[in-house]
Structures are given as structure tokens and as C-alpha cells.
């Protein structure tokens, strides 16, 4: 079970990465308009 000593930090690192991306996305205003982007693909 010693593999957990690698897997747990790896998992934590990955979720930390995800949270960082999310924080950046929010700060960039990517979630300000939830309607237009949901439909934008219809326009292509």
C-alpha cells in the first residue's frame, strides 16, 4: 500500500491544479455570462 504515498500527493496536486484553473477562470469573468456560451455553438 506504499503506493498511496505517491498517489495521494499526486491526486492532491491534480485537484489543486483544477482549483487553480477554476479560480483563474472565475477571475477572468468566464462565468459571468452563462447563457450565451451555452448556445454559441448553434451559431457555427
Amino acid at each position, binding site marked *: *500500500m506504499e503506493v*498511496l504515498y505517491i498517489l*495521494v500527493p499526486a*491526486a*492532491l496536486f491534480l*485537484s489543486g491544479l*483544477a*482549483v487553480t484553473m*477554476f*479560480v483563474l477562470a*472565475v*477571475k477572468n*469573468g468566464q*462565468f*459571468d*455570462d*452563462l*447563457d*450565451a456560451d451555452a*448556445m*454559441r455553438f*448553434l*451559431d457555427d
Partner: protein
Amino acid sequence: MDATAEEVLLSLDGLHCVSCVNRVEQLLRGRPGVLEAAVNLTRKQARLSVRAQEFELPEALEALAQAGFTARRLSEKQVRQNEKDTREQRALLLKLGISGCVAANVMLLSIALYIGQFQGIESEFKRLFQGLSFVLTTPVVLFCGSHFAIPAWKALSNRQVTIDVPITIGLGATYLLSVVSYYRGTEHQYFDTATAFVFALLVGRYLQSLGMSRVRNSLDLLLGLRPERARVLRGGAEVEVGVEALEVGDLVLLEQGLGVPADGTLMEGEVEVDESSMTGESLPLKKGPRDPLLAGTQVFSGQAAMRVDAVGAKTTLSRLAALIEETQESRMGEGKLSGKVASMFSGLILVIALLVFFWWLPVGLEKATLVAVSVLVITCPCALGLALPLAYWMAVRTGIERGVLVKDEASLEQTPVLTDLVMDKTGTVTVGRPELIREEHHRRSEEEISALVQVLEKECSHPFARTLMNRYSASGAPELTAEVEAVPGRGRRALIEGREVFIGTHSGGTGDIELTVDGERWACWSFEDAVRPEAPVLIEKLKDRGLRLHLLSGDRQDRTERVSQQIGIENYAGNQLPDDKARRVAALQQEGAVVGLLGDGVNDGPALAAADVGAAMGHAASVATASAPVLLLRPGLEPVMAWLDLGKAYRKTVSSSLGLSVLYNLIAVPAAASGVVSPLVAAIAMPLASLAVVVNSLQLSRRL
């Protein structure tokens, strides 16, 4: 970005889908001076970054209008509100995302620990997982939990108890209990409960905040659009001036696609006007000479000249804007009834939780804390703190769409329990304009009479004269010229071809107006203020609802009687002065009636104020003077039903929300107090109940 770049925020109407978004963005980017344009469909706004020297706002607005989008620059106050909303929503979303991610991870760790209890787990991993849960949970509680802790602290320091207080105490207790148990090395910690609790609550708050800003944006939009510039006839020449330079009495030229810059009266020409921004009426209305025009409406087709009657802050648009803003702010302020009840409720929860805690204390500190936390968490005062304001907001919004502006929630609550409806006659049940009901020509041809009427009444502004002019203007009679003089209070007189011609009232005459030539009567006319065509049907509907109807009028008794028979109202009284009407209303109230009053707002002021619910008819003039809590924005009687329906829908919504909440609490609180519900289940149940109540409030418009 350019040093001279400036931000412009526009509110847009007519925006429905992504292709609209693309069209608007492309159109705006094509304007000179525009560096960047971004449209937000959720908020129905466009954010422009422009070079101020090159950018012409009015032209851009007009280009948008031609493409079918009504745009308006947001006022500074609205921009600030808007930025505040954005900031708050982003902060909330951030906390929501972080708590969600952590909650998921902590949950996985606790699943591992839980399974480990059955299958066995090496104590070093057990300690590792517990420690990890602790480390991950701490920032969530401190950072994400601050969303509840800071308001709770603020409320407490103002000696108030809000729903945030029990939430904060519950969260804090769960966390501290877990920390203590971690250091003492006992079996159970509740870090998963704490994070899931924060996450579930934040989801509820985020949805609520989205709903609120949506309602606010639609109200912003509704305030409509007033053009920035207007074309005016001054000294015979056509000049373009800024709207702020318009003066009362100016002649403004209107054209297809332009907005009406001020309140006024149409003088010449014919236009179709889209008044949807002001009255909610979706079909364009035809307007001819002497019809009133409202600032903020759009000319749909045709051309006309308009005389300005009110400018700036005196226009109906500005008044309506001020009214709506007032309504908004009064709702935003704390200390309303629902807020008070919610804080009492929160206090009650604290007391119950404390009692429950001491009740369970003999069993053990840990169990007692857990049960108390469950009670704190599971109770849901959302129906009071959240659903009632939201229901009121929805009512205001749907009301405006249907031509009713309700200024306070008390009158909405009263509307469905009305037993009596008192109506004013002139301008309410009737059109408010005299119409010709009878004419007699005595042995004279129509042409002779027509010629005389036209020369005498051509320049007279009395309503009777205007009606007569309309009647005879198409007859093609020969044009006469004469020196006309007014006989004050009676009519007008002229010497035509050596004969003295008089038009006006005559004592002893049968008609209201007569035409005499050398004392001999040639014609006479009777006028009556016609009953609105929709009135009889409406009266029928009102009676079906079990309302007792009364007609009170300042007009003569016989005319009041005639009108009330025409529309089918049994209780009527004429010769009523404004104070008499108020006394009548008070007398009815003493008999135990709940009285609604429908008046035109001008001379019904005292009665409107005396009634339980006063509703004022929406003439351009009445918006200012109305002391009524309810304003009917569309002309005619059609919005009366909308008003009554709205009251019913509001009541239904409120009572079902309250019912839901009471039912939920009746089940949940005893369950939590008896210790069968774990804090985690409580943390999931409470936001679900909140959500159910919020969704219920948002359904208000479907109940109409």
C-alpha cells in the same frame, strides 16, 4: 489598452439568442472609436471599450435601434450596482467551486475511512486520511465559511439575529468538535459534514443571487430608452438639440425608428407608437392629433410633430424610473416584516438547539453537540427570509409586464381579500373625453352649420369644441372668415355677413352646446363622456369574483345614474367631492369591508389614500400625483384584472411557500432533535428545502 479608452455599459433590449449577440457585437465593433465590444446575454448588457474622442454614443444607439435592439446607457448608479453584483457573484462562485472540490475529496477520504472500519485499515493510513481531511477542510471553513460568518458577525454586532447566525454556529461547532476529536485520537470526525454543509449552502446562495440579479436587470431594462437628441422646430428652422435642452412648448419632429424624447401631445401627423417599454403593451398604438405621447416610447412608423409638455425629471418615464428605484430600495432595506420574522425564527432555533444540547448532554458531549448541530442546520427559515422577498420581486416584475406597478407588498397582500371596489366615473369607467351623443339641426343644411362651426371653433381648445371640429372637419363646407370673440364661461361669438352668430351654452337650452344665429337656434349638440368599451365586460367579471361594486362621481346625479345603469353597477352616487368619496370609503370600512379604490388619481387622492388598496389609472398625468400604491400602467381598464390576478397569484405563492416551510420544519426539527438525523443529512436537507421554496416563488408568473 489605450490611455484614452473609456468604458461604456449599455443595457440592451431585444436580445434573445446568440446570433443576436454576434450581430450586436459586430455592429458595435464596426462603429468608429470602438476598441472592443462584449455582450453579456445573461445580463442583457454590452460592455464597450471606446476612444472617447471618436465614439459617438447617439449614433451607435441609433444603429442598434435600426437593427432592432433598444439600447440605453446605464446610469452611474446602475453601473456601480452592476459591478457590485458581478464582484459578489464571482466571489460566491469562487467559494462555491473551492468548497465543492474539497467536499468531494474529503468525502472520498471518509469513504476510505468508513470502509476501513469494516475491512481494517493500517493505523498510519487512517491517521494520514484523517489529517488530510483536517488540512483540506480548514481553508474551506475559514475562507468559504466566511460568506456566512462575516454577515453573522455584522448582524450580531448590530444586535440582530439573522439566519447566518445559526449557520455559523452550526458550522463552527461541527468543525471544532472534529478538530478536538482529531487531536484526542478518537474514532469519528465530521470534516466531511462541514465541507458538504458549506458547499450545499453556497449552491443555494449562488442560485438565489443569480435570480435576484436577473430580476434587477429586467427592471433596469424596463426603464426603457430615451433618445439623447431630438429634432426641434425653432423659429421655423429644424435644429437638432440634446434632450436636456428641450423646453416645454417645443415642437419636436418624430420619425420612424426614433424614440420619443419627452412627454408631449401629438400636434400633426399620425404615427404608430410602440409603448411596450412604458406600459407593456406589445402592439403598436396608433396616435393622432391631440393624443398624448410618452418619453421612452418608440415611433414604429409614420411621421409627426409633437408639442413638448414635460421634460427631464417631470416626464412619466423619469417618474416611473424614480418610483421603481424607490420600490427597489425600500425592499432592499432590512427591518421589513419578513426580515423581522426571520430573525425571530433564527433566535428561536438557537434556543431550541441549546435546549436539545442540554437534553442530550447526559449521553455524552459529542452526541449532544452533533444533535444540536443537526437542529441548527436543518431548520430553514428560508420561506421568510428568502421566499417572501423573492415572491414580491416576481410580482413586481410580472406586474410591470402586464401593466401593473405595485409599490408595496401590503397592498398585494390585501388585494385578494377585497370585498368592495369603489370606482370613479370620469376617466376611469369612462374614456374621460366628451363624445357627441346627440345632434339636432334645425331646418338648416349640414353645410351651413358646418361652415359656422368651423369658423367659430377653429381656434378654441375646449374639449367640446375639439369634438365638434372633428365632427365637421370632413364635411367640405365653404370656408368663412370672421372676427371671433370669446364670451368667457359661455362660448364664442362672431359677426358673419351682418348676423350675430353664437356657439356655446345657453340657459334653458336642451343641449349642452347650441348654435344660434340672431338668437334663432340652428343646431344643438349633447355630449357625453363615453363609457369605455371594455367596462361592461370587466364589471361582469368583477361581479363574478364576488366583489361589491360602487360608482362614485363628481358628476351630476342623473349622468352617474345613466352610466351605472349602462355598465350594471347598483350602488352609485353623484355630486361627490373628493372628501365625500374618502368618507364613503371610510363608511364602508366601518361596516367591515375591505375596500379597493379605482380612480384616475387626479381628484381621487383622499379616497385613494383612505382605501385599503388604491389603484390609479395610468394616464400620463396621474403617475406623479398618484398617492395610490398600485398604478395601472396601460390605458383602459384591462390591467384591473391583471392587478387582481396578481394579488391572487402572490397570495397563493406566499401561502404555499410558507406552508412548505412550516411543513418541512415540523418534520425536520423533531427528527433532528431526536438524534436520528446526522448533521450531514441535515446539511443536505436544508438547502433542498430552501431551493424548493425559492423555485416555488419563481413560479408566481405561472399562477396568473
